[in-house]
């Protein structure tokens, strides 16, 4: 059943009129024109579709659009503010934490939610936090370094 669903997307209020059972992933990618969130498996395994809902990492392929009504959604397009890269994005660049880049948006958002929860994660905590985000290119080593880099810089401040 089509209805208008109002929620905050990257800081702005949006209200698409869609079937409430549709997934957030595809509403983002089609109706809302934000293609940074990726499809990888469609069944909740790979994390390519990770977005933040009220600051928590969520698999947008498993989330009905009606369930984000009134909530705050952050996608990769909203991670940098006013053209300035988020420290994690900068760290991914500096540490070469990507190859094909297809897993990268989901990876960044998973890392972002991890740092919101645990500002100074240990290596083990980073691994646990990103465990369900897959990267076939094998960029894992650099991704961990990038996340560690951001945490270290924060501590230095």
């Amino acid at each position, binding site marked *: 059943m089509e209805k208008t669903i109002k929620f905050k997307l990257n800081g702005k209020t949006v209200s698409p009129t869609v079937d409430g059972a549709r997934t957030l992933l595809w509403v983002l990618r089609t109706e809302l024109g934000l293609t940074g969130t*990726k499809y990888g498996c*469609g069944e909740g395994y*790979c994390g390519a579709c990770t977005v933040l809902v009220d600051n928590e990492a969520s698999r947008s392929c498993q989330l009905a659009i009606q369930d984000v009504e009134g909530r705050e959604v952050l996608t990769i397009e909203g991670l940098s503010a006013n053209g300035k890269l988020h420290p994690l*994005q900068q760290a991914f660049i500096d540490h070469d934490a990507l190859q094909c*880049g297809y897993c990268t948006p989901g990876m960044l958002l998973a890392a972002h939610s991890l740092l919101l929860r645990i500002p100074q994660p240990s290596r083990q905590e980073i691994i646990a936090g990103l465990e369900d985000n897959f990267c076939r290119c*094998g*960029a*894992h080593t650099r991704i961990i370094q990038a996340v560690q880099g951001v945490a270290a810089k924060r501590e230095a401040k």
Partner: protein
Amino acid sequence: MTREDLYGESDNPAESTLKLDRREFLKLTGGGILILFSLGEFSTLEAQRREYPTDFNAYLLIGEDGRISCFTGKIEMGQGVITSLAQMAAEELCVPLDSVKMVMGDTELCPWDGGTHGSLTTRFFGPPLRAASAKAREVLLELASAQMKVPPEQLVTENGKIFERGKPGKALTYAQLAKGQKITRELEREAVQKVAAEFKVIGVPTIRTDAREKVTGQARFAGDIRYPGLLYAKILRPPAHRAQLKSADTSAAEKMAGVTVVRQDDLIACLHLDPEMAEKALQTVRADFEIPQETVDDKNIFDHLLKVAQEGNPADEKGSLETGEKQASRLFEAKYLNSYVAHSPIEPHTATAEFKDGKVEVWASTQSPFGIKESIANALNLPSEKVHVRTPFVGGGFGGKSRNTQAEEAARLSMITGKPVQVAWTRAEEFFYDTFRPAAVVLIKSGIDDQGRIVLWDYKVYFAGSRGASHTYDIPNNRITVFGSGWGGAAGTHPFATGAWRAPGANTNVFSRESQIDMMAAKAGIDPLEFRLKNMKDDRMLGVLRAAADKFGWKPAVSPSGRGFGISCGVDSGTYVASIAEVAVDKNSGHVQVKRVVCAQDMGLVINPEGAKIQMEGCITMGLGYALTEEIHFKGGKIFDANYDSYAIPRFSWLPEIETVLIEAKNSPAQGGGEPAIINMGAVVANAIFDASGARLYQLPMTPDRIKAALKA
């Protein structure tokens, strides 16, 4: 990517179709200096020379704004060539890296290319690109010389400018020189290129030029291409390969609002503006398939392969096996097995197509834009100039995106419906239609004398092909026989499509050989590193073995030492690579944790050391999958793996500590780097498991069940 500059804002790519030929090229790009070069001239690889046209067809352009564009049919799928190729051009042209833009994989803008695979891009496309860039610099020097009235020898090129030696204040920029020019030059002889000592860009660690787009979500992949009115298509799939469609009832789907149903021969698809609705519509289609009864499965496949194998081809032959057997004081015979594995890039095969005015434009996640141009032309019965393939960023390929039926499907559906169409495979389709790395069998009979010298090597490989089958050991009686190819096989060989998978065949061959070597070392009571060094004369291999051992801090011990250390070495794509791993084996659960991997690589001239190291790390991480878990489960044409629940790929918690070493070899030609480090992963882990536990594994992947069984044996 950079083609936006040529196409303008291409959010609506439908409006920006360009048809370029050489004469129009300068007109369209607004003039400048165009260098044409022939890849054929420069090829050192016999096979490639045959494949590539020898006329002048590769472009390097210095635009009137002084910016450099390089047009190549190669594509970027994570291997980093968008950066390393630009580095080569920047080096020879003496410009900063960011003034070079790469235009890649566009069949109308770029010259023909045989596909991006086999670690060939840098090795093969690199030399002519460097020469063309050097040529362009010569042309610029001529122009500057004429304008400044100074002989070219007294001119210096630096940072996109040319000036008389000692007078940098009075410089002409490339933009000033190219302005108003319409110069086309063919590169007939090799222009003078820089030597290693002069390098400023090559060999310098560099951050990927595509990184910013990729971290902001701006980078576009085939599924991110939008046309107004784009329909998403979901296609009816058979439950098994070779299943015959008997009947299909699409009437329910036809009644659904907004759904377009296509039925043409065996192609049945539901299309909608919303992909989820298209999927829902497809779910209502009732189809009847007849599935042939087939008995081959993931357990008996190896017997099947041995049975169907035809006559073998000798790859290497030296001495006599009879003599070898006589000289040997100990003989070893073993059979090694390797399973079908999936490429499984995180981006499934995707294509977005628009058929319009008798012409089709297709954006595809492909490793082979020119290959699919032809196959689309065939599928649509169009002359090939009516097919324009464009390649955005590709979300991983590893050999799996050389075949692209999704692009044909999208093009066909667009032609039939008259609307732009996207076909994006689901993960299940990706697992079903993959061109799997073939299952394979290796039989080895080898022998050592009482000094621990290898005197006999009789090696037969079935369906992994010759890549990686040859070795650098110094064995007087050596025969290598290759049965069947490592890519496919005659009809009836494999139950589904097979193809190249990151370093095809080499993974199986190196696993088998290096396991056998290790077994002999253990039985001879010799440390596995020493055993290898003792049986080898090849300097480059000795070099990488020693470098890896140094970095690892190798202390000699006979296996199984209980420490869990393993070694493996091999050559791939011209690159020498040695790896040493440390593992921990949980004997109760059969679980293996790889704790540390050291990998040393000699790949000749290294264009981008950071990029090369990243590729090595990627290989090591990805290689853990085929070593430990990855195998396709099937019966006949039915594939049981449909998603990551049953097919496990490496994750963060698997990650060993990885250390990489690059051997300085600036004056040897650049070799491939995208694949070599993966070839050791099966053997290095198998040998480390043996060292830890005394259990020898003869089959990949080394799952907990197989490890427990080997521990009992």
